[in-house]
C-alpha cells in the first residue's frame, strides 16, 4: 500500500474566531449615505406606483449591504406593501423557477401588494466563462409577467449586472429601472475589521465558507468602485488572500490562484510584507498540489528570503516547513526531518501553537514511514492535543486521519474505519475537498482490507474524481495506483497495467519516489501479461 499522501498545511492563523454573522446590523439607519437614501426612495416609489409586474434591478456589491438595504425598504413600505426577500444560497439553473419555489415554501398570508426582492443570483453568474443561467433568463422574459403580479427586483453586484445587461438583452430590454446603490464606506470598514480579525477561515463550516466568500467578493467589488488609497490597498490585499484561501479550500484552484496573484501584485507594490508572504506561501502550496514542484520551491524560497531579510522568525519557520514538505515529496527524508525540527523549535520559542502542531504532525508522518509506529502515535497524539486546545477542527481531522492510518497498519481495521469516518465527517462539515478526497481514499483501502473489493473500488474512484476536479495530481496518481492494485487482485491484468502506467507517468512528472515502486509494479504486470 502506498503511504498516505502528505497532508496539506493550512494558512497560519491566529486562534480564536470572533463570531462573524453578516446578518448582524453593522450599519445604523441614519448612517446610510444620503445618496443611497435617495436611491431607496426611488425603489420605494416604483413599488408604491406599480400595480402589475415590473422588473427592476438593484446594483449592490456587498451581500451584507443588500440585506440591510432590503430590510430598510421593508420598514419604509410597512403597511403599504409586503416586501418578500428571496435569498438564493446556491447557483440555480432557472431564476424564475427558483423564485417560485422559494415563494411556495413561504407560508405567510399576505394581504395587499407584494414586491419580491431576489438576492444571491450572482452565484449563478460567474465573472468569467459560460453562464447558462443568463441564457435561460434571457429566454424566460415572457414568462416573468405570467408568474408574478407585482414588482420583482433583482439585486446583483456590479460585474454580474453588467454581464446580465450584455448577455440577457431581451430580458434587460424589459427593465423598469436600474437602481445603483453606492458602496457604504463605513460598512466596508467595519466588515474589513470583523473579517480580518477572524482569519481562521479553514475551520468555517461549508455554508459559512460560502457566506464569507460572498462577503469578500462584495468587498473586492466595493474597493474597485471607490478610490483605492494605501490603507484600502493593504486591506484589499488581505481580503484577496483570505478569499483565495477560501477558494483553495473549496477546491476552486484556478480562482484561488488568480486571487493570490492579484494580492501579491498589490502587496508587493505597497511593500506589505505580511500579505506578500501569505500570498507567496499560498501560491507555493497551490503549485505543490498541481505538481509544479520547481515553481513551489521558487515561491517558498522567495518567501524565505523576505522573512530572513526582515528577521521574521515565524515567516522563516513557515517557509522552512514548506521546503521540508518538498524534500519529503522528493524522498529526502533526512532533510525533511531537519527542516521540520527547526520549524518545531522556532514555533515553541514563539509560542506559535499551530506551528508546533503542524510540525509534530509532519514528524509523525516521517516516523510512520520509518516504521516507528509507536513514535508516530506519540507525535500525532501530541499534535492532536494542541489542535483540540485551539479548537482547530481541520488540524483535529488530519490527526484522526493519521491515527486511522496507524490503526490500519496495526491491523485494527474497526478502529481505522472509525477514525477515518470521524475525519471525513469533519472535512465534510468544513467543505474541505482535499481532505474529503484523502479520507475517501483511505476508507477505500480499509474496505479492501475487510474483503470488500467493490466498496474499495467505489470509494477510491470517488476520491479520484474529487482529485481530478481539484487538479490534484498526486491524489490522482495514488488513486490510480490503488485501482491498479484492485484490478490485479481481481485477476484483470490488462486493467491493472493500464492504471499503473498512468500512475507511473504522473509520479515521474511529480518527481515522486513512488515512481520507482510504480515502475516495478508495471514491469511485474507486463511479465504476467506476457506469460499468460
Amino acid at each position, binding site marked *: 500500500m502506498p503511504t498516505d499522501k502528505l497532508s496539506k498545511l493550512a494558512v497560519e492563523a491566529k486562534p480564536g474566531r470572533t463570531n462573524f454573522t453578516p446578518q448582524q446590523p453593522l450599519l445604523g439607519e441614519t448612517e446610510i449615505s444620503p445618496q443611497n437614501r435617495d436611491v431607496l*426612495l*426611488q425603489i420605494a416609489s416604483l413599488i*408604491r406606483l406599480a400595480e402589475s409586474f415590473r422588473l427592476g434591478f438593484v446594483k449592490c456589491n456587498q451581500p451584507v449591504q443588500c440585506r440591510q438595504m432590503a430590510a430598510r425598504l421593508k420598514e419604509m413600505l410597512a403597511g403599504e406593501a409586503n416586501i418578500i426577500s428571496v435569498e438564493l444560497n446556491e447557483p440555480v439553473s432557472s431564476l424564475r423557477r427558483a423564485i417560485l419555489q422559494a415563494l411556495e415554501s413561504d407560508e405567510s398570508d399576505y394581504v395587499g401588494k407584494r414586491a419580491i426582492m431576489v438576492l444571491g443570483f450572482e452565484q449563478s453568474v460567474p465573472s468569467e466563462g459560460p453562464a447558462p443561467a443568463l441564457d435561460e433568463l*434571457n429566454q424566460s422574459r415572457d414568462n416573468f409577467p405570467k408568474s408574478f403580479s407585482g414588482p420583482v427586483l433583482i439585486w446583483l453586484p456590479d460585474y454580474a449586472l453588467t454581464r446580465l445587461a450584455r448577455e440577457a438583452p431581451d430580458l434587460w*430590454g424589459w*427593465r423598469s429601472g436600474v437602481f445603483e446603490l453606492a458602496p457604504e464606506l463605513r460598512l466596508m470598514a467595519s466588515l474589513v475589521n470583523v473579517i480580518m480579525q477572524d482569519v481562521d477561515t479553514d475551520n468555517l463550516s461549508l455554508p459559512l465558507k460560502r457566506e464569507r466568500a460572498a462577503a469578500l467578493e462584495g468587498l473586492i467589488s466595493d474597493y474597485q468602485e471607490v478610490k483605492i488609497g494605501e490603507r484600502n490597498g493593504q486591506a484589499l490585499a488581505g481580503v484577496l488572500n483570505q478569499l483565495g484561501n477560501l477558494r483553495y479550500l473549496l477546491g476552486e484552484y484556478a480562482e484561488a490562484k488568480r486571487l493570490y496573484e492579484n494580492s501579491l501584485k498589490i502587496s508587493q507594490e505597497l511593500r506589505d510584507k505580511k500579505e506578500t508572504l501569505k500570498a507567496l506561501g499560498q501560491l507555493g502550496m497551490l503549485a505543490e498540489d498541481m505538481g509544479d514542484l520547481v515553481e513551489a520551491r521558487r515561491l517558498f524560497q522567495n518567501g524565505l528570503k523576505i522573512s530572513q531579510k526582515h528577521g521574521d522568525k515565524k515567516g522563516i519557520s513557515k517557509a522552512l516547513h514548506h521546503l521540508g514538505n518538498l524534500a519529503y515529496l522528493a524522498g529526502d527524508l533526512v532533510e525533511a526531518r531537519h527542516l521540520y525540527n527547526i520549524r518545531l523549535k522556532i514555533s515553541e520559542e514563539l509560542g506559535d501553537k499551530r506551528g508546533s502542531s503542524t510540525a509534530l504532525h509532519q514528524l509523525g508522518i516521517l516516523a510512520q514511514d520509518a516504521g516507528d509506529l509507536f513514535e508516530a502515535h506519540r507525535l500525532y497524539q501530541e499534535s492532536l492535543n494542541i489542535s483540540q486546545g485551539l479548537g482547530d477542527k481541520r488540524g483535529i481531522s488530519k490527526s484522526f486521519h493519521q491515527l486511522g492510518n496507524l490503526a490500519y497498519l496495526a491491523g485494527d481495521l474497526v478502529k481505522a474505519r472509525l477514525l477515518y469516518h470521524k475525519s471525513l465527517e469533519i472535512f465534510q462539515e468544513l467543505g474541505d475537498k482535499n481532505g474529503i478526497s484523502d479520507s475517501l481514499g483511505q476508507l477505500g483501502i480499509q474496505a479492501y482490507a475487510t474483503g470488500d473489493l467493490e466498496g474499495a473500488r467505489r470509494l477510491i474512484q470517488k476520491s479520484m474524481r474529487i482529485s481530478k476536479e481539484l487538479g490534484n495530481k498526486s491524489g490522482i496518481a495514488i488513486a490510480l495506483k490503488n485501482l491498479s492494485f484492485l484490478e490485479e487482485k481481481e485477476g484483470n491484468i490488462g486493467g491493472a497495467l493500464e492504471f499503473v502506467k498512468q500512475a507511473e507517468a504522473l509520479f515521474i512528472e511529480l518527481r515522486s519516489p513512488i515512481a520507482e515502486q510504480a515502475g516495478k509494479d508495471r514491469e511485474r504486470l507486463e511479465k504476467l501479461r506476457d506469460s499468460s
Partner: protein
Amino acid sequence: MMNRTPPATNLKDAYNAVLLDPLQSGDPRWVDCSQVRGGTDVVGLLALRIEGSSHSTAQLISGHRGCGKSTELLRLANRLEREKFLVVYFAADEDIDMGDLVYTDLLLSIIKRLERTLSENGIKIDERLSKGILMWFAEVVYGWKDETVMEAALKTEFELGLNVPAPLPIIAKLLARITGQIRTGHEIRKDIRLKLDPQIYPLIERINEFIRAALPEIQKKGYQDLVLIIDNLDRIVLRVLDEKTGRTTHDALYLEHAEQLKALDAHVVYTVPISMFYSLKATQLAGAFPNYEILPMIKVAEQDGSPCQEGIDNLSDVAEKRINVQSLLEKGVVDYLAEKSGGMLRDFIRLLGYTVELAQAEGGKIPISKKTAENAFRRLINEYGRMVPDEHFKLLANVAKNKQVRNDTKHQAMLYNLSVLEYMNRDRWCDVHPAVRELAEFKNAYRQIE
C-alpha cells in the same frame, strides 16, 4: 389587454399607463408612425404581397428590439384576418430554445401551432392522411411502428398530469411531446435531431401534405388562404459556429436553410435579426428573400442632428394616448424625452415611466419639471453604459460621424444591443443612441476623431 380608459391624470395612473408590452391590434393607443419610419407602411406592404399573390410567399420582417415590431405584426395578423385569411401567429421562443435552435425545431413548432389553430377553428382534415403523417412522426422520432404502442405511451404520459388541456387529438399529443422534449431535454433533443436531420425534405413534405389537406377545409370555412406569422424568431442567439469562416447561428438558419424556409405551401412571415442586414451576407439574404421589410426607428432627428419635429410629435401622440400630458408634465418635457429616446418606442415609454417614478420619489409634485426628466435620462445613460463594451466606443464615434455602419460582427453587435439605431429617409442611415452619446468614453472617442 384593451385599454380604453382616458389618459391618466395622476402619477399612479400615469405610471401604470406606460407599460412596455406590445399593443394588441386595434388598441386605440396605437399611433401611425409610418411617415417618420421612412414613409413606408410596413404592415400594408407585407399584407398587400400576401393578398395579391396567387401562390405562397415567404417574407422577412426585421427591426430593432423594442421598435414596435410585435405591435406591427399583431396589426398585420388582424388586417389579414379581416381580409379572411386564417392566421397562425406565434412567438417562436415560446416553443424553441433560442440559445440552441436548429431548423427542424422550427418546422416542428410550425406544424404543432398549425394543428392547434386548425383544431381550435373546428377544421378537420382527412383522417387517413392525418394518421399517415402522425405515424411518420411516431416512427421517425420514436421508432413506434405500431399505433397501439404509441397510443399507450402517450396515454399514460398525458394522464400522469402533464399540463395539457384534455381532450387532445392524438397528433397534438405527439407533437406536444416532441416539441416539449426538444425545448427542455438536453440529451433527448440531440437524439431527436439526429433522427430528423436526414429527413428534412420528407419532413417538409409531410407538413405540406398537412397544409394541402387542410386548405379545402379552410376554404370551406370561408377563408381565402393560410398565413403563418412567426414572431420573435429574431431572438435566436448569435453564436459563431465556425471560427474560420465566421459562420453563425443566424447564417445557419436564414441562409443555409433559405430554400427550406421558402418551401412551405403557405404564406409565411419570418422575423429576422436586424444585424443580419448589416452582415457580409446581407446581399445573399436579400437575394434569397427579395420581399423583406425593415421597421426603422421613429426619426426624432435628421442626419445633420437637427430635430425632426414630425417624429417628436408622433411620440408626443404616443404619450398623450396614455397620460394627460398637459396636466402632468411641464411644457417641453415630452419633446425632450422623445428626442433622448432616439425614436426607440420602448425607451421612450421607459423614460416616461422613469420620469413619473422619480417625480413620486421627489415628493409627487405635478406638473413634472424638466429637471426630473433629465434625471430620468441620466438613469438611461447609466444603463447604456453597462451595455456597451469598451472596445465599441471608437467604432461608435465613427458611426456618429459617418451615419453608416460597416458590415462586420462588431457593428452587428452594436445594432443588436441598440447602441446604434437605424433610421430611414429614402435611404437607410444609422446613428448612435442619444444615451450612448452622453457617456464619457464616447465623448472621448468622438473628440479624438474630430
